């Protein structure tokens, strides 16, 4: 269980204090696919950075299976919005980078990488270099790389934000398959309502200033997707449209911008 308890984050910038996260509570249990949805500046990336260990909390605490989080670690795999592959390593070496850090022999690393590339549909691309791949393919490599060290949770920061909508749908389907097959917990950030509904077993809607959760939903679209339903069937299903509009209303309900004076 990943437990976030009373997490608050304050940034100092240009002489004023920004309240980025306000006493946030969230549990992510085994097998959960939690999607954080919100406009930019709502604190969803701040939350992810805190879970990843890139950012300390001002208040509160985060524990992963009982261990307090103090800095980044291989138990939490991160897929970034920006492509962060190492340009000097071929795709297989990029995927196996974490295994190299863990001291695995080259042969074992390449074998594991092959398997993971297969999982993300890039079987024959191990020897290619990142610059030879499309944006969608690079993100797949990023997912494979994050899975390589067998983390307890996968953290994804708008990983498909820069992709065209067709590629994006392919990637959503792929991610659901990966989630279904590996059973990993996933914490996923997006600002697309449809993406949140399609992917999440749990959807938290966040609002800015200060960043907090304003609504929580459970959804079962992702389970149906994992069991073979198509994205189209899901989008056309009875409950999808109303739920999407309900969430849209929440996001559009512009909260009074509260400036936190220093």
């Amino acid at each position, binding site marked *: 269980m990943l437990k976030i308890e009373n997490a608050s984050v304050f940034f100092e910038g240009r002489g004023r204090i920004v309240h980025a996260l306000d006493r946030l509570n969230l549990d992510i249990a085994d097998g959960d696919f939690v999607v954080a949805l919100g406009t930019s500046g709502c604190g969803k990336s701040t939350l992810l950075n805190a879970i*990843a*260990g*890139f950012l300390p909390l001002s208040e509160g605490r985060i524990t992963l299976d009982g261990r307090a989080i103090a*800095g*980044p*670690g*291989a138990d*939490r*795999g*991160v897929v*970034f919005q*920006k492509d*962060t592959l*190492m*340009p*000097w390593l071929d795709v297989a070496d990029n995927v196996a*980078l*974490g295994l*190299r*850090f*863990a001291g695995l022999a080259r042969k074992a690393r390449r074998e594991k990488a092959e398997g993971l590339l297969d999982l993300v549909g890039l079987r024959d691309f191990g020897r290619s*270099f*990142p*610059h030879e791949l499309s944006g969608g393919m690079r993100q797949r490599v990023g997912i494979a*790389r*994050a899975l*390589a*060290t067998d983390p307890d949770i996968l953290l994804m920061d708008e990983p498909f934000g820069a992709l065209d909508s067709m590629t994006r749908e392919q990637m959503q389907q792929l991610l659901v398959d990966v989630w279904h097959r590996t059973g990993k917990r996933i914490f996923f950030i997006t600002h697309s309502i449809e993406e949140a509904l399609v992917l999440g077993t749990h959807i938290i809607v966040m609002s800015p200033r200060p960043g907090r959760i304003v609504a929580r939903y459970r959804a079962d679209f992702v389970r149906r997707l994992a069991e073979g339903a198509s994205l189209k069937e899901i989008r056309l299903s009875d409950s999808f449209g109303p739920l999407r509009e309900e969430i849209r209303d929440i996001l559009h309900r512009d909260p009074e911008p509260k400036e936190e004076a220093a």
Partner: protein
Amino acid sequence: MTVIDKLAAFEGEVPSSGATGPRTVRMPAFGISGQPTTLISLVTASLLVGAWWFVTEYGLVSSLFLPRPAEVLHQFVVVARDGYAGAPLIDHVGASLFRIGLAAALAILAGIPLGLLMGLNRFAKGILDTPIEFYWPLPPLSYLPLMIIWLGIGETSKVTLLFLAMFAPICLAAQSGVRSLPVERAQAARTLGATRLQLFAHIVLPGALPEILTGIRIALGVGWGTLVAAELIASTRGIGFLIMSAAQFLATDVVFVGIAIISVCAFSFAHAVRLAERLLVPWRGRG
């Protein structure tokens, strides 16, 4: 909603790819962006040599100021055969190459680790920044007298002068290479379980390599530029010495021979680094 014409997109005639093929177009880019320039350069070079030949052949410029190409070529053969100032040409070239080579090796050995350290550590940066920023904009000729007073007139002062000139660009390049590391890349490595040492060896160092190689290329250029100054110090060997000595006898043709040798050497060095770049960082500019 009405469908206007679903097939419209497919009805256009496909241009036949016959013998000539369709006229391909492309978006004009800013700058030259990879268009070949070799031919233009070759034409320019031949025009310059042609102009040189023309103005000397027809006596437009006295050969005391500008010798004829043939004279320079002849003088090269003479110097190569008989040597200059009591030493064979190979000794002059060898002496210069030794000084530049040794100074470059020392500058690389010292500049890369210190530069990396400056990029990584606040204290290293704070301590080393002041002396480097102070001395490196100085023209080497200005502290040449100090080198002689402190280190004498032997090889030490020459190599030190060259070392100082070449150290700063390499050190600053290594430092900037470290600083150009995208924060996400470092974060990615940390979440993959990299220790600080692994982060350095597997992420920081390869990431800084392109800039380091650029620094070495610049340093070699600066090094050749400083060579003549270094060989002003009581030399009896060296291309720089050859040039300065020939100048005293108004032997313009020998000066040209010396200049040509330096330019060939400098060009080869720069090319060697370019080759190293192609081998070591083929991914440069694509990451």
